[in-house]
């Protein structure tokens, strides 16, 4: 396969630096050549840094035996390894296996036999996430999965540097630069290979603009697709978070592949592709724990901007419905998922890894994070049938 042309990635940066605080003077019509570094706000930098926090937690859970992830070490910044408290390790474990289960059920739906049934995953704010490597390490998935990651250029650059310097990761992806089946942008922030794409892109810039659609190289608008936001959209303004999802649900996957912008008119018609969304984020900001969480994170400069809008399991379900995931909307907090998704045997194994000193604290923490998942499947293609039997939590 010939190396795909590297798009002008600066196009994607348009719209950055919109009106929060002092940066409003630089309008979005600025020349696209504007250097990115000059326009990254302090807030963005803090959000970008949350990725390092997550990868340290992941490595801690892996090293203690909670998770099996041979890629965790190389994707954690060197010298940052740190043993997390048992309560955090358990939370990292539950969050990871919960999303793994939903992803597996998406990739393993009953209709997906044979090689023609390719599927696509788009991970928003993926950062140093190892999921793509873990999935491609499985032979049953590697030939029929296209995986996209979208994140700030600073995060994608770091990941691409790691991939370039780590043969283990290249082997996992089946790519070799010498074989010409991978291309990396001059800036080192975009990667394209037959089945794995890393897009340097501020999610807030995603809008119904042909140039942006074309720049998201390799996204197949005709494939059954799963969107994942793991602690990502919550850092955006509520309107931005909606806009990002709408970009996918209406613009990118709202009309049959190949249609022009006139496709707007065909939105909602029967031949839209099956599309699912998994969200993982904090909830319940209004009790004592939630209030403390909000203020503690605020002192670190972290603002959970959509937290109050999507503050409960119910609000998450409504959100999914409003984004057009009509076939199903469900949610469960991490406490529920630990109780109901993890087998007794596995629970015993995990509980044996470290003594949890304070169960009430675990429940409190776990009840403030939720996984929600919604899907649309208008052809009744059974792509998301596996999600119908996942235990969901009722109530708020």
């Amino acid at each position, binding site marked *: 396969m010939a190396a795909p042309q590297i798009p002008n990635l600066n196009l994607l940066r348009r719209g950055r630096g919109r009106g929060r605080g002092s940066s409003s003077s630089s309008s979005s019509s600025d020349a696209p050549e504007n250097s990115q570094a000059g326009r990254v706000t302090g807030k963005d930098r803090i959000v970008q840094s949350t990725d390092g926090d997550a990868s340290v937690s992941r490595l801690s859970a892996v090293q203690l035996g909670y998770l099996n992830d041979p890629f965790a070490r190389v994707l954690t910044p060197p010298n940052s390894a740190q043993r997390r408290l048992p309560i955090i390790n358990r939370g990292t474990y539950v969050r990871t296996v919960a999303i793994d289960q939903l992803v597996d059920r998406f990739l393993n739906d009953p209709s997906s036999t044979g090689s023609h049934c390719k599927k696509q995953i788009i991970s928003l704010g993926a950062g140093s996430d190892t999921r793509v490597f873990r999935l491609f390490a499985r032979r049953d998935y590697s030939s029929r999965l296209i995986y996209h990651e979208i994140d700030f250029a600073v995060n994608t650059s770091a990941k691409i540097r790691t991939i370039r310097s780590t043969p283990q990761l290249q082997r996992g992806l089946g790519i070799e630069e010498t074989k010409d089946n991978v291309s990396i942008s001059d800036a080192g922030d975009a990667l394209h290979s037959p089945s794995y794409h890393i897009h340097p892109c501020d999610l807030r810039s995603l809008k119904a603009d042909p140039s942006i659609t074309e720049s998201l190289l390799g996204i197949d608008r005709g494939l059954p697709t799963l969107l994942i936001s793991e602690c990502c959209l919550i850092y955006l303004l509520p309107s931005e978070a909606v806009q990002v999802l709408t970009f996918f649900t209406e613009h990118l996957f709202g009309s049959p592949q190949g249609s022009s912008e006139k496709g707007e008119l065909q939105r909602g018609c029967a031949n839209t592709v099956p599309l699912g969304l998994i969200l993982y984020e*904090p909830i319940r900001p209004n009790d004592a724990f939630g*209030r*403390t969480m909000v203020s503690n994170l605020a002192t670190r400069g*972290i603002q959970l901007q959509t937290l109050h809008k999507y503050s409960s399991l119910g609000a998450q379900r409504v959100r999914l419905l409003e984004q057009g995931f009509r076939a199903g909307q469900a949610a469960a907090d991490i406490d529920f998922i630990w109780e109901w998704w993890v087998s007794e045997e596995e629970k015993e194994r995990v*509980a044996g890894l470290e003594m949890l*000193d304070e*169960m009430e*604290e675990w429940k409190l923490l776990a009840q403030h994070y939720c996984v929600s998942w919604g899907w649309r499947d208008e052809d009744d293609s059974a792509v998301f049938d596996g999600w119908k039997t996942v235990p969901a939590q009722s109530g708020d």
Partner: protein
Amino acid sequence: MSDLDRAIEQLRACRLIPESQVRELCYKARELLIEEGNVVSVDAPVTICGDIHGQFHDLMELFRVGGDVPDTNYLFMGDFVDRGFYSLESFLLLLCLKVRYPDRITLIRGNHESRQITTVYGFYDECIRKYGSANVWRYCCEVFDYLALGAIVLGASSELEPSGSNANDLTQSTIAVDDGELETEVLNSRGEVTMSSYRPRQRASSDVDTDTQDILPPRDISAAPSQTSAPTRTGAPGTGASGDGNGSSMTSRTGAVLCVHGGLSPLIDSVDKIRLIDRKQEVPHEGAMCDLLWSDPDEIEGWGLSPRGAGFLFGGDIVKQFNHQNGLSLIARAHQLVMEGYKEMFDGGIVTVWSAPNYCYRCGNVAAILELGEDTSNGGTIARSNGEYGRSNGLSGPSSVSSPGRRYRVFEAAAQDTRGMPAKKPVADYFL
């Protein structure tokens, strides 16, 4: 001023003492603790405290709310260290106070006073960070091994003296005072009464109704209907609860109160069995000693497996039976975070006291301490219901002991920057 007093002063300012002094302190503390039984006897009045977890500034707030040592007699139910950033300052201060005022402060062991747990939950790292070696950690762990496993509080009054500065204040609810004994009272950190409950003076059985007055927003002690409001009053910490000496408790006596960090054990059916344990060791992974430090009460029948991976869950029937057999009126324990600071369960047979507000700088909970007053109705002679079955007086068998009057002081996390003490900005972990 003695070296010890100087050390206390220094630690109160949240400044550490030299390693050599820690070593000496730990040696003295061990000499003192080795003389204590597994179950220490403590006379009321006493103020019972739950987990501290290295939240030094909140421990200072506790002393502000509950009164200072030695003015107030304290019983700390363990978990001095781990999780918070000032385990060393907190534990060493408590230990200094113990050595300085051995009869005014009792320390019993929590599940975190253990080598294994402190290496996971922070105390070990803190020792390395602050002293540059594991020596101090080792000295402290040796002290842990000598801490008592429980305490028995004797001579607690069944009735609280209203915490008003003037007990005969006409503005208080005359109905309640005439008809009942003040059984429980909850005060906020400003000393204002937020809830009080009364029990009738004429005791038909041990299961009497209580009337509750909700004055400020209620705590979850009782679902009994509210009565008329009484005004807010201020009470002196640590001294407020004492028997009124008017003979009202002639027909009943207050059973002893067992204090233990975690709870009961299926291997322990009497307080005496606790006394037989060889405690001077690291907390084992299982067995009676482990259970006492790890178990939790739960809304189950009998015994259950603990989700913590150590100890057991025990139900109300177990508590009732144990209290009855041992002439106890109450078990006070810590070990479990409760958002309201304290939680009574099983008709008041057991109470959890939690003294670490905003636990781990993350949980948003309030904390509480429990004051038990002194029963002066017998001219100061303590009715010896010390947990030995069968030694009840002739009037009332072990089943008819009445519960002690209980005054809870609820407090919030200290405002760290107002005290001029060093306070590292706490960073609580979240999933990001």
